């Protein structure tokens, strides 16, 4: 498998693969024997999983189990020590986070990372960066392509905001939005990059039950509308069990169980490592 | 908040601009609001003079920053001369000084502010780089300029009305090489110079060229820059290693003190030979004069000179500032007296325009002979270059001793 692609090549391949993916032949995400060490300490090891197109999967585990590290590996924030990650059939080894995103992986962050000084709308437009077709010279000289592209971008960004019920706050600075709204805005920004899979890192954290309930609907709606896969880390078991079709449980950087929500609920290893511990508290 | 501040700033800007216009407009005709300021600095004598209508002299130089030592020396020297002249009655001078921070851009601003004040003769600037820029302006505006200490060739090349009272750099370089060769002071010559400074590198270049002509062997030439001149130990070491028996130091006393101190520490004792910038080394506060023993320099001025004029100047300068004047102060003193002589001889009066004075001054300077602290029988060529003979002095028992 070739490892280095030019930006153009990546785009061409990913487009073709999107088509194949529609046929359901290639998994969106194919992770094989993934592992990373931090200075001798093994944080993640032997992580295997595949996620098909339009699949909603969950990643759970106790605090410090290595969940966010796995997300960071999937998005090339960290380079893995072992194993490989294939996004739409392409190995992401050595790629930058930006390149992996262009391959089709978008994400949100556990500690929200919005562009706080920009409005909600601008945040989304930053997400659309690579799909706005307008050259440097055009925007510098304010040639017609610039206005056309900006108009289209505004229109699409508003549509996306509207989709998550955020149209009202389009003009508000992201930093001054309430917590729950910020989380949803991060999802919109991730969606704006036209991903084939979106990684949500604790999307319900800090939300009240009503908001969480709404979020569950929205996650399903995102999958149905955009026909993309979703992979999420979440501590809210109600959300995970209700939304996810497949669940992976990790502890100490290793997979301890894998299966449908029903299977996971009854898995003794999970109960011991995760739920059991929870009861003790 | 930001907007509020922006508005505030805008308001200040507008006020500042109008204040700038206003103040200089009102100043020009009556010429007293600015005068009190200048007069305070120059003492009582000028204050009386102001009423009678004095010729306005402008001086700009580095009064703050790293080169402030030269600018302040020139300022003090000029103020003493102006006081003396005004006390004589007769022709009166009024001197205004402006800071140029040893920067060409700021020098132009300083010059412009002096022109706005009504300057009729430019007695400055002090250092070469600002002088080159100001000389261009003086030439274009037709204001006579006589610089006390800017020795670069580019300065006087700017126009026919630009004159120097100090030697030009090439002149010094050539003269030094000639003198060394003539008196067989050394066979292996080491040079340390400031490659970022116009004065120092200007002298060095000509020295090197002339050394070839007269057959001096330069065994090492070590440069430093304004940014790393705080450490000159290497350059001294290099000269020692190269076995130089005479080290030529074409730069100022400040750095020379460092070189001499370090050479003494490592027990390196060649003959050190300096230029006019070296003057003042004996009086640098805290410097051990015995270290300068045997140092030889070409300088037009020595504060230890026995003649009456020098003695009186040195005394006044010490009373005023508490320190012994260096060559910059002496040059500045001479500048004022040279201008005074030319004004008297040419019949310049305070009501003449700068252009009229300019013509008279150029005529006078190219024809007159002037005796000052820094040389007797000075004459000027049409290029603006001074012709006076450099005097070689050697430091013996802590005082300058003249050599022919």
């Amino acid at each position, binding site marked *: 498998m070739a490892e280095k692609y030019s930006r153009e090549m990546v785009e061409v391949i990913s487009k073709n693969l999107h088509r194949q993916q529609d046929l359901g032949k290639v998994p969106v995400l194919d992770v094989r024997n993934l592992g990373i060490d931090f200075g001798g300490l093994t944080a993640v090891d032997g992580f295997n999983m595949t996620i098909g197109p339009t699949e909603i999967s969950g990643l759970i585990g106790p605090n410090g189990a290595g969940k966010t590290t796995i997300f960071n590996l999937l998005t090339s*924030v960290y380079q893995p020590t072992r194993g490989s990650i294939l996004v739409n059939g392409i190995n992401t080894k050595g790629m930058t986070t930006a390149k992996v995103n262009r391959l089709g992986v978008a994400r949100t962050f556990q500690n929200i990372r919005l562009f706080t000084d920009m409005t909600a709308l601008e945040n989304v437009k930053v997400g659309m960066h690579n799909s706005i077709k307008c050259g440097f010279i055009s925007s510098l000289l304010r040639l017609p392509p610039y206005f056309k592209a900006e108009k289209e971008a505004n229109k699409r960004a508003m549509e996306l905001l509207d989709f998550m019920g955020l149209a009202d706050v389009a003009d508000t600075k992201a930093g001054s939005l309430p917590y729950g709204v910020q989380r949803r805005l991060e999802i919109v920004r991730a969606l704006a990059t036209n991903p084939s899979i979106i990684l949500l890192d604790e999307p319900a954290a800090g939300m009240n039950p009503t908001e969480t309930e709404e979020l569950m609907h929205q996650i399903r709606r995102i999958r149905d509308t955009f026909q993309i896969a979703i992979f999420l880390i979440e501590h809210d078991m109600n959300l995970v069990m209700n939304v996810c079709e497949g669940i992976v449980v990790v502890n100490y950087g290793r997979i301890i169980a894998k299966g449908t929500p029903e299977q996971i609920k009854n898995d003794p290893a999970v109960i011991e490592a995760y739920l059991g511990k929870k009861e003790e508290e | 908040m930001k907007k509020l501040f922006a508005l505030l700033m805008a308001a200040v800007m507008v006020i500042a601009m109008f204040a700038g216009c206003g103040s200089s407009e009102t100043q020009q005709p009556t010429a007293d609001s600015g005068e009190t300021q200048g007069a305070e600095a120059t003492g009582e004598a000028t204050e009386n003079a102001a009423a009678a209508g004095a010729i306005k002299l402008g001086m700009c130089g580095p009064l703050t920053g790293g080169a402030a030592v030269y*600018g302040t020396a020139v300022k003090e020297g000029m103020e003493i001369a102006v006081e003396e002249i005004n006390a004589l009655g007769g022709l009166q001078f009024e001197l205004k000084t402006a800071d140029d921070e040893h920067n060409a851009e700021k020098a132009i601003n300083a010059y412009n502010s002096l022109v706005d004040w009504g300057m009729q003769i430019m007695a400055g600037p002090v250092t070469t780089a600002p002088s080159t820029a100001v000389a261009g302006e003086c030439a274009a505006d037709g204001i006579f300029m006589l610089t006390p200490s800017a020795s670069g060739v580019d300065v006087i090349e700017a126009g026919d009305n630009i004159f120097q009272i100090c030697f030009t750099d090439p002149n010094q370089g050539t003269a030094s090489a000639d003198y060394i060769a003539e008196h067989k002071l050394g066979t292996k010559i080491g040079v340390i110079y400031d*490659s970022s400074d116009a004065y120092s590198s200007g002298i060095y270049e000509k020295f090197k060229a002339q050394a070839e002509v007269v057959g001096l062997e330069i065994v090492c030439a*070590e*440069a430093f820059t304004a940014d790393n001149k705080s450490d000159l130990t*290497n350059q001294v070491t290099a000269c020692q290693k190269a076995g130089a028996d005479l080290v030529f130091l074409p730069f100022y006393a400040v750095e020379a003190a460092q070189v001499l101190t370090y050479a003494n*520490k*490592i027990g390196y004792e060649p003959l050190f030979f300096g230029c006019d910038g070296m003057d003042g080394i004996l009086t*640098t*506060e805290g410097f051990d004069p015995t270290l300068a023993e045997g140092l030889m320099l070409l300088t037009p001025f020595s504060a230890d000179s026995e003649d009456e004029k020098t003695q009186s100047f040195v005394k006044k300068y010490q009373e005023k500032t508490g320190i012994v004047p260096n060559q910059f102060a002496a040059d500045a003193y001479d500048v004022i007296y040279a201008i005074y002589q030319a004004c008297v001889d040419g019949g310049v009066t305070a009501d003449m325009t700068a252009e009229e004075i300019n013509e008279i001054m150029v005529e006078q300077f190219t024809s007159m002979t002037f005796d000052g602290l820094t040389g007797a029988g000075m004459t000027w060529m049409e290029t603006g270059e001074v012709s006076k003979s450099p005097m070689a002095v050697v430091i013996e028992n802590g005082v300058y001793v003249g050599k022919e």
Partner: protein
Amino acid sequence: MSFLQYLINGISIGAVYAIIALGYTMVYGIAKMLNFAHGDVIMVGAYISFSATNYLGVPAVLSIFIAMAVCTILGIIIEGLAYKPLRGTSSLAVLITAIGVSYFLQNAAQLIWGATPKNFTSIVTSAPISLFGGQLTITGEVIITIVASAVIMLALHFFTTKTKIGKAMRAVSEDRDAAQLMGINVNRTISTTFAIGSALAAIAGVLLCSTVPTLQPTTGSMPGIRAFTAAVFGGIGSIPGAMLGGILLGVIETFSKAYLSSQFSDAIVFLVLIIVLLVKPAGLLGKQVQEKV
């Protein structure tokens, strides 16, 4: 033999850079600000010592302590008036006030002591050591400077690892908010850091001017920038790094003057710095901090 001599010269000026850099790096580590006025505090320290010995007749060694006391007070005043009100805002804002303070100190010094340079009398009176029949000379200043910088480095190291206030400093430098939550008085810790940094600056001033005797209002600015470079070179925030960076910078500067080009030595020094930073982006001994995602 000349190689050795150059090496000693380089270490000597490098040790001065190192002492200045120690002050720089400590303040940076704790207050996270580039204190561009540090070089000017050095200048003030040197002037105080000079004035004490030359005008008041105080013995040279005692004058160092006077300089340290004055600089400590000065440091605390500067910190309290100009930096403390801006705590918690952009570090750039503090950088600009530091520049303002630097201008202020330089011009105040010119008003007080005049623009004419003073020739600083070295505090070291011992004769230079001559080796190999005069081939190699080591001056007393070199030895004192090297010893002083090593002692200061060790003392600082001991101070920050063993004493309570030192530990508080480290805690503040690691995580200011967490330190505050643990009951550490962050403001007082930072003020203390400035006090110590300024006292160090006084020593640096005396040693700098003993090696390089010219004392004028701008004396501190260029060595200040060099020392800042040295601190970054060694890894800013790291105490041994400042020492190593300072000495290496001095040696590189000396060697480039001696063997490459005295004309381009500035460019060479900075080029080496850039190359080092490209290879080790956090400096020689600096910790590469990975941003938590």
